[in-house]
């Protein structure tokens, strides 16, 4: 929307006129498409272009926020005025404020965030991608005949960020994703098994093909046939990359500046300590070209950077926005949302081991293929989630397992990450290779 910059300037001026010392306006515009095809029928097609604005105002070390998708001038003017009034009612907080400095962000073009091809991709082709993926998937194995559907979605848009400290930045970004959810049933059995696979990327050309997504989904479904519970025991577990990435989401939540200053993390007061096995290196990389978490600057205008979180087992950095950075006496790592922290590309660096060799190293243990439920206490690190997987017997994947839980403590689990695979898979903003953890409790019968 070409009048966005003018609208943002007007809101900043209104905020200052109402008494704000500083203000920040974030505007976004996005165009979305999504479709789901099930059993060959187009179930849904959704399209929209939407706009939104959000605002922070500061005065006398006090802050207030506002947001709107109603962009009529009267609405916005009222929101700005009331935000300044509310800021006066907040408590004074010496750490409140815009970031202290705004180093130049990398040029957005160098980060490969936008695919113009998505602008012109016709709806029929988008639908065909989903249709083809499902159709291929339903032909690969006679036991796989039911489907939860195949989905294809695209999103593209632009954000603008301006503040009263002279920062003004904008960038375009896009993403697309293709996924499939299938069910299998063995002849004569009532129970169904299910699994999914997906591919997501900023560029259409980087997406896996319908054939690849379909094959992977069917492989994943079929390995669950005949699943059983195992006896309750302590044993090693191997997380395949998709699941190891889920584990990283919990680790991320524990290294945010907000969790640390509020003492809601098992990693409070551990900076500089060995918290993970030797060889474990964890990064948050906002600069990775084409990454789904990449952007030139964060929600506060702080330039993206590459931050070592854990280096060779030692906790090196918490991930901060400007507020938590001030609270902790650190610098923003470019993870600010204006209301806490968000990851960019948060990943576990690849290790030396072939994934097959990791499985082969386990005498008896669980290869985890699916986790469900919450069950993570970030304050203590206590971890307990429902799991599906494959039982490893003498270094071989032997039979599927369901309806068990895996339990441990995230700190012990990080310390117990004794093997890391070479198969780092950047499927999403959280990414990991195969990981083996020396021991957790598996609860079954």
């Amino acid at each position, binding site marked *: 929307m070409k009048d966005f910059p003018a609208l943002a300037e007007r809101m900043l001026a209104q905020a200052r006129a109402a008494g704000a010392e500083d203000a920040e306006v974030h505007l976004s515009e996005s165009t979305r498409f999504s479709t789901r095809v099930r059993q060959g029928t187009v179930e849904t*097609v959704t399209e929209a272009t939407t706009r939104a604005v959000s605002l922070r105002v500061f005065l006398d070390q006090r802050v207030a926020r506002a947001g709107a998708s*109603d962009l009529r001038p009267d609405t916005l003017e009222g929101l700005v005025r009331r935000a300044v009034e509310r800021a006066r009612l*907040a408590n004074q907080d010496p750490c409140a404020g815009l970031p202290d400095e705004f180093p130049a962000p990398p040029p957005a073009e160098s980060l490969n965030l936008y695919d113009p091809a998505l602008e012109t991709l016709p709806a029929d082709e988008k639908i065909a991608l989903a249709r083809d993926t499902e159709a291929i998937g339903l032909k690969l194995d006679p036991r796989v005949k039911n489907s939860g559907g195949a989905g294809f979605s695209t999103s593209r848009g632009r954000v603008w960020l301006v503040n009263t400290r002279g920062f003004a930045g904008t960038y375009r970004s896009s993403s697309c994703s293709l996924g499939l959810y299938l069910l299998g049933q063995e002849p004569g059995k009532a129970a169904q098994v299910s699994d999914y696979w997906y591919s997501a990327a900023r560029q259409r050309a980087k997406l896996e093909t319908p054939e690849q997504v379909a094959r992977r989904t069917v492989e994943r479904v079929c390995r669950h046939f005949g699943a059983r519970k195992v006896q309750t025991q302590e044993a090693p577990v191997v997380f395949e990359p998709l699941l190891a990435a889920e584990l990283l989401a919990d680790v991320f939540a524990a290294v945010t500046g907000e969790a640390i200053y509020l003492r809601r993390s098992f990693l409070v007061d551990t900076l500089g300590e060995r918290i993970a096995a030797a060889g474990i290196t964890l990064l948050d990389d906002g600069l990775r070209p084409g990454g789904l978490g990449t952007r030139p600057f964060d929600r506060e205008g702080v330039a993206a950077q590459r931050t070592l979180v854990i280096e060779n087992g030692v906790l090196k950095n918490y991930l901060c926005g400007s507020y938590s950075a001030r609270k902790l006496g650190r610098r923003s790592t470019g993870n600010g949302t204006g209301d806490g922290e968000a990851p960019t590309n948060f990943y576990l660096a690849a290790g030396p081991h072939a994934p097959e060799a990791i499985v082969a190293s386990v005498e008896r243990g669980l290869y985890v293929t699916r986790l469900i*439920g919450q069950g993570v206490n970030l304050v203590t690190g206590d971890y307990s989630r429902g799991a*599906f997987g494959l039982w490893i017997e003498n270094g071989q994947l032997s039979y599927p397992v369901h309806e*068990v839980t*895996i339990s441990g403590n995230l700190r012990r689990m990080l310390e117990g990450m004794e093997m890391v695979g070479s198969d780092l898979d950047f499927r999403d903003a959280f990414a990991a290779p195969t990981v083996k953890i020396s021991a957790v409790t598996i609860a079954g019968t």
Partner: protein
Amino acid sequence: MDPFRVNARAYFEQEHGVDARRLERVLAEGLGRGGDFADVYVEYRQASSLHLEESLLKESRESVAVGAGVRVVVGEQTGYAYTNELSLEALLECARTAARIARGSRAAGSVNLSPQPVPDRYAVERPAHAAPMAEKVAFLRAADAAARAADPRAREVTANWSDEWRQVLIATSAGELVADTQPLATFSVSAVLEANGQRQAGWKNRGLRAGLEAFSVAEAERLAREAVAQAATLLTAVDAPAGEFPVVLAPGASGVLLHESVGHPLEADANRKRLSVFSGRLGERVATELTTVVDDATLPGLRGSVNVDGEATIPRTPTVLIEKGVLRAYLQDRLSARLMQMSPTGNGRRQDYSSIPIPRMTNTFLAAGDSDPEEIVRSVARGLYCQAFSGGQVEPAVGKFTFSMHEAYLIEDGRRTRPVKGATLIGSGEEILRNIVAVGHDLVLDRGAWACGKDGQSAPVGVGTPTVKIAKMTVGGRR
């Protein structure tokens, strides 16, 4: 004008020029290429929130969202488009986009909208959005002070308030025009206790479709003390056991278990597509005779209650899903009801204007039985008593579900004894229903701020249960 003192229909007409005539034109455009059904969902939402931490009121937020979505349904197919602009041109453009799903060329039919009355299940005396901010801040400060006074180990306390007022106008090609004004208010408090290098958090919250009169400083203080007591209990907790044990659910929030294990698998879309273990099993015995499960949108003031769902169906009665063990009904929206030749149950809910309605729960609970709750605990030789939950998840097609305890106790020789650390329980919905072996007479509808996620849409829901004994579940502890 204050948008929330007036009827939603009058508000959209006066403030945005969205009247019956405009909606009729949009619906006609939506059906311009054929189609079985079309609707327009128009929404204006004002939300505000307050956040207190470190004894400081650090932030307040206000947001206004406006938008409309147009849906066109053809057979099993749904075309949907939405916008932030309510002008005739923007809405017609949405209608044309949504109509692309249809391939016909039938001339646009005409729609005559007539307003439908809705019940009043929210009974708001003092709308929270209109109350002075200081009144809500007082809840947060009281909670903070009460938590810190309750226990010197209280190291960090956070308290949050949020309220939302939603004006909704829904017009359908069947001629219905329904307006509703939906309030939602939430208070939450959480405390981290620290002692001898150990830390634990406790939390409590309230979520209601009500005004400020349903909240009080005294209640904020009580919830804060309960959160502190919970954290204190957890500081003394031992590891939960691992393996299969009998489980007793405390009345109230443990209804989360029913929500996951039975509620989701009984949503009509999953059953219509054979994506649920309960597909095609209406009339079958699926649970013990003690088991009656109800979804009830009509309960006044509860978080999951609605006057009208997201597609203009007014839930008139509770929906009995399982009656004395027999499967009686699915949770229906209009699409699934039509395809399954059943009746809509008023469960076609949507997160907001950007979302297509789908079958969702409202307030879902297990009906009271006749057992004495204390007797239920006494009947367990070795097991778990689950007091508070943090949530759950289900895979309806395979029936496996989890739910995660936040506060639980061992039962030893018929007595509730030591607290155990949080752990996840896992089971199969079908087995759980066959393992409900005692149901107490003490039904409690929880007043917590539960949110349910499905297909990327979040919806406020209510849960409830009496004391229940489940003969056997897998407990994901560590001992």
